[in-house]
């Protein structure tokens, strides 16, 4: 196990800079997730940590040692790829033991270590099979087995569950979490799926256009998003955002919306009268039956325990999450209440949380 440090890391392809001045510290044994939309640089960052991509500037350390010039093997990392990247001509056992074979480990030792990893991942009966004879979930487990068999300092996961169907993804997510709890190896996990990041990670790094937007625990990101990007990215369905202007007295500020209605916000928000802002309302914080906002119901999406209600307010579509038993029908009026302590306010120009 080892800590991982990134100091002012940059990556450029010619004149195009894709990773901008990233500094990050991952503690020993920590599980950290890199999330962000496609093209935000999360996979590039992971590949730079792995040594599969050169860094243009900065410093990467693993276990306190600068690894910039080291090969992937010398960095003592293991990586799980999105497409599993199993060697098709080798059996499961050979796939898992390949890195040990290259490292010069003796055959009996390889067999012992592969056997242990296979037991941990319930792969014992599959050791003689070829990857083509395995299901998607089994292949992903073999990919993880190949990673743990060498007892690396750091696990790197590059969107490992993206190729699996929804049900299997949930199952594998649980397995990855259980595996991390068992072996406790420092893990860096890249995903574009915020649910995956929230459920797995000790801390999440939100990336956008090659920059870190915010680093924090899942609940910190959810409760106190640093800016509009994080607020919109974390949480599903996404946060509702409305344009408005700060109005009211200092001890009782309100956001006046374009169509004239006013919404109370916490006096703790650092706002000034007349400031152009974006108001953020999480769908799950809108209380059905309240009397702050409302409009015609455009769409009702029952998901079982909860129902997503799409309604029109202030000229735009809003989403609310209500109890599954709450009666709501398409075309009727939907009204919702707002707790002012659960209203987010962002500067409209800079996007920074106020």
């Amino acid at each position, binding site marked *: 196990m080892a800590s991982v440090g990134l100091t002012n890391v940059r990556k450029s392809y010619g004149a195009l800079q894709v990773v901008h001045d990233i500094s990050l510290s991952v503690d020993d044994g920590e599980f950290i997730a890199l999330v962000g939309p496609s093209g935000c640089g999360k996979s590039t960052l992971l590949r730079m940590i792995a040594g*599969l991509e050169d860094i243009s500037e900065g410093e990467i350390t693993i276990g306190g040692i600068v690894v910039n010039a080291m*090969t992937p093997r010398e960095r003592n990392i*293991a990586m799980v790829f999105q497409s599993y*990247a199993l*060697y098709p001509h080798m059996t499961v056992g050979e796939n898992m033991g390949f*890195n040990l074979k290259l490292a010069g480990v003796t055959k009996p030792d390889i067999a012992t270590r592969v056997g242990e990893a296979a037991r941990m991942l319930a792969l014992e009966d599959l050791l003689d099979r070829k990857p083509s004879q395995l299901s998607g979930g089994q292949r992903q487990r073999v990919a993880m087995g*190949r990673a743990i068999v060498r007892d690396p300092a750091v696990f790197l996961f590059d969107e490992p569950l993206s190729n699996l169907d929804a049900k299997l993804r949930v199952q594998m997510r649980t397995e990855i979490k259980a595996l991390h709890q068992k072996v406790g190896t420092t893990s860096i996990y890249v995903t574009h799926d915020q649910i995956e990041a929230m459920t797995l990670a000790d801390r999440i790094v939100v990336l956008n256009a090659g920059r870190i937007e915010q680093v924090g625990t899942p609940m910190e990101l959810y409760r106190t998003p640093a800016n509009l990007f994080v607020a919109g990215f974390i949480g599903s369905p996404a946060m509702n955002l409305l344009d408005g202007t700060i109005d009211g007295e200092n001890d009782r500020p309100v956001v006046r919306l374009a169509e004239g209605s006013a919404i109370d916000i916490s006096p703790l928000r650092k706002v000034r009268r007349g400031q152009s802002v974006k108001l953020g309302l999480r769908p799950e914080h809108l209380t059905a039956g309240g009397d702050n906002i409302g409009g015609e119901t455009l769409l009702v999406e029952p998901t079982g325990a909860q129902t997503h209600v799409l309604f029109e307010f202030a000229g735009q579509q809003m989403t609310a999450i209500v109890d599954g038993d709450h009666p709501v029908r398409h075309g009727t009026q939907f009204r919702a209440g707002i707790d002012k302590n659960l209203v987010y306010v962002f500067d409209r120009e800079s996007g920074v949380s106020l």
Partner: protein
Amino acid sequence: MTDTSSTVRVSTATRLYVYVSLSLVAAIVLVPLVTTALGGFKTLGDLRLNPFGLPSEWVWSNYVDILFGERYWRQMMNSLIIAGVTVFLTLVVSSMAAFCFAHIRFFGSNQLLNYFLIGLMFPAATAILPLFIRIRDLGLLDSYWGVILPQVAFGLGMSILLFRNYFRNLPEELFQAAFVDGCGYIRFFWYISLPLSRPIVATVGIVTFVSSWNSYILPLIMLNTESKYPWPLGIMVYRGEFGTDWQLVLAFITLTILPTIIVFFLAQKHIIAGLTAGAVKS
């Protein structure tokens, strides 16, 4: 109900046209082969009177005499040595060169690749004189190497192209996974690329083998001693010797092309797989 199947419906007329065309093409290929093989079972008189039909009397001795003679087997050995070493060297050199072109970018790599590919445009016959001089200067005249080395050189363009395209189509993540596992370029080539490239190894191997097996001009120019002649030259000498006994010449020709046909039938799946690799998304 709407037919959602993607199968293309073919009319009877089209099908008939396809079958007739294919039968014609097959006949163009098969008739000379079958005529040659059957001719070897005839007497000279029978061959003159009835060149295309079945033998009126099956003369097995034409084939048996050749098979029990020393000449046939010696020439087969010469052909096997020349073709075998040519295939081995072509596979080793072209696979390694193609691996570099597929995975390593270095100064002038594209130009160097193009230089190899230009070789595709020149058959050995066009360069036979300078080739002869160079082989003579190397002291390789009248030796197997005098045939093998030019054959390898002229085969490199196509072989490198086929190997390179195949290597480039292997998933990039395999390459990365192998590097994380501790492979360098050489180990990746040996443990991953090569074992995964059996179809293209078979294709290049067979195409090179057949090309060397049928090679006539190079052995003719480079070899002088009859005991070193491969089959194509052997046929020429045999024809000179038994020019009037066409049934023997036909039997000899049949026996020399038989191994190629057998190899081709056994390996046709690999040849087609290799030549069409990467043509469609798998």
